[in-house]
């Protein structure tokens, strides 16, 4: 049995705990959080060892791997400590607030041959994987534009927010906490952008952070990109993410449920005919052994467990790819004037 530890038992930490708990080759051996009520309730009901200090846990609990789901500002310190002790590490997104720190973590993990994964779960959604496959195979020809968007209701009233998510210093705000998913998805499908031509970080209800991010990107081969995210849009029941890719031979519009492909006449590709072909998630998603909130959450942990077992530092959603995402985020922050009053 692989011994796993959890650092940070909030919303994502609990979700990871349940998925690991149901995994046949993993034992959740220890958890760590500063909120004593949650950890002591879990200890009482499950018998898991609990800690308040992650260093003590990593020093004493003989863990093979650890999931880090703490505020982003702490990721560098926590992940470094774990890697230095030979622990395989999974970190919630985004990896770090400073891209240089992400790069340092990526190099550390690689030099120690330790699995290093970041929780960009969109990369495990069948529709998005198919989008990437088609783009890379040249099915839509040369890509000239990529659009990424996400809408949902996270902050829908003024003065809401008393957690780290509403604090810029700790890594809160729509750009790091929400738009990061879309930036990473665009990277996944089209590769990282070369430049950010312009960006607006808009406050709607929050005091300290932005609630919407709009940015124009430029890719190395000359394609353009448009990012549009807003977490104060109450018309969406839950986070709704869409990616659109335009190519010289057709286009693809994908969300969590559907991959819609339009090919020009003469551009037929595999089973995709000219005109529209719609493929659904029911057809594109591989089954998982345990389901909690979406196949992708289980699939990303399966992939991590697999990397740990294989002792591999090079795999999907590695720190190195999350570094590229952090770099794009930093460019957007800079163009959007993050940190200045707006």
């Amino acid at each position, binding site marked *: 049995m692989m011994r796993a530890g959890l650092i940070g038992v909030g919303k994502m930490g*609990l979700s990871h705990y349940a998925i690991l708990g149901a995994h046949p080759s993993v034992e959740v051996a220890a958890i760590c959080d500063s909120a004593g009520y949650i950890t*002591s309730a879990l200890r009482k009901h499950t018998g898991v060892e609990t800690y308040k200090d992650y260093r003590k846990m990593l020093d004493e609990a003989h863990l093979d791997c650890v999931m880090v789901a703490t505020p982003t500002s702490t990721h560098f310190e926590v992940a470094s400590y774990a890697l230095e002790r030979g622990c395989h590490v999974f970190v919630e997104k985004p990896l770090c607030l400073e891209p240089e720190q992400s790069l340092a973590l990526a190099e550390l993990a690689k030099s120690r041959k330790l699995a290093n994964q970041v929780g960009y779960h969109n990369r495990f959604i069948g529709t998005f994987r198919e989008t990437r496959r088609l783009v890379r195979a040249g099915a839509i020809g040369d890509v000239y534009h990529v659009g990424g968007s996400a809408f949902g209701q996270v902050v829908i009233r003024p003065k809401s927010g008393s*957690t780290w998510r509403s604090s810029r210093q700790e890594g809160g705000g729509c750009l790091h906490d929400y738009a990061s998913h879309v930036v990473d998805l665009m990277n996944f499908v089209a590769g990282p952008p070369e430049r950010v031509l312009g960006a607006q970080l808009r406050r709607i209800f929050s005091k300290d952070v932005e609630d919407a991010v709009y940015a124009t990107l430029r890719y190395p081969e000359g394609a353009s990109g448009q990012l549009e995210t807003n977490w104060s849009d109450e018309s969406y029941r*839950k986070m709704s993410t869409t990616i659109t890719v335009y190519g010289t031979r057709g286009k693809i519009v994908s969300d969590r*449920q559907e991959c819609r492909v339009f090919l020009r006449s003469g551009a037929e590709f595999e089973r995709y005919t000219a005109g529209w072909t719609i493929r659904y998630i029911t057809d594109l998603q591989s089954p998982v052994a345990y389901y909690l909130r979406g196949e992708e959450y289980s699939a990303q942990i399966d992939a991590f467990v697999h990397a740990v077992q294989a002792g591999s530092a090079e795999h999907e959603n590695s720190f190195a790819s999350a570094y590229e995402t952090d770099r794009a985020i930093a460019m957007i922050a800079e163009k959007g004037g993050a940190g200045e009053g707006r």
Partner: protein
Amino acid sequence: MERILFGDNQFFGVNHMSEEKARAQAMKFRDTAAIMRVLDQAYDAGIKVFMCTTHDRVGEIADIVRANPARYRDFEFYPCMPYAHKYANSVGEVGIIETLRRFAPGGIVETLIKGAISAVTQDTERLMQMLVDAELKRFAGAKTPIVFLQNVVTDLLLGLGMHDVLAMFARHVERKYGAEAGFITMNLPMLVGALERAGIERPIVCANVNKIGFRMCGGIEAYREVIGSGRCRPIAMSVLASGAIPPAEAIEWVCGMKGLQSIVFGASSKANIVQTKELIEQCWGTA
């Protein structure tokens, strides 16, 4: 337990295949009267049970049903709690503790935090009871013979290994509401074993059962085995896999599964309600 149950996903913008379709449905059913028209069609077609999330809008439906006892004499609710997005959105916004404070009033959270070390087990039970009571408040006076725990909570507790909390839920709805507990899950074979170990015999469970195996964790064969074993009272949901399988083919396959007690389905028009009900009755030979 009734054999054919009417579900509510179509009313609240839930569609596992298409966000566009979900949005169009959310617009169509933006007022309660539009929902009530469809519910009336289902009730008049002979479907007496509305299996529904404890969404605020369902409270308005409960008000209408209560206010018209002659019209809705046999109408039953199978409430499914909680309406998870309410909690999930709130946790993202203000955190876990503050969310519990919002939805379980009366100082219980303060008591919990102070007494964290001494009596967590009792406190968890008390907290769970208060959250359940808050969710069921809108159904007071209506018939709720079965009360379900939504899959996100059932499966979370299953994965965390907090199986005793599932049993606490069953005890509470039985003692306080005279109702049976039901458990919605995406992990049926794993859940039934856990419920048995927690001391719940022949639990009422509700899970996806469809020809393509969509969200049937453990696989179709493991489902067939546990459903046919008599160890639980299973309700099939998502039999059409959100439209991925043609209705007649889907229903014929599901009805052929030995041991299935009930089917829950949603529809937005009278024609679809009647057609689906007739298909089920033909396959089950209950027409």
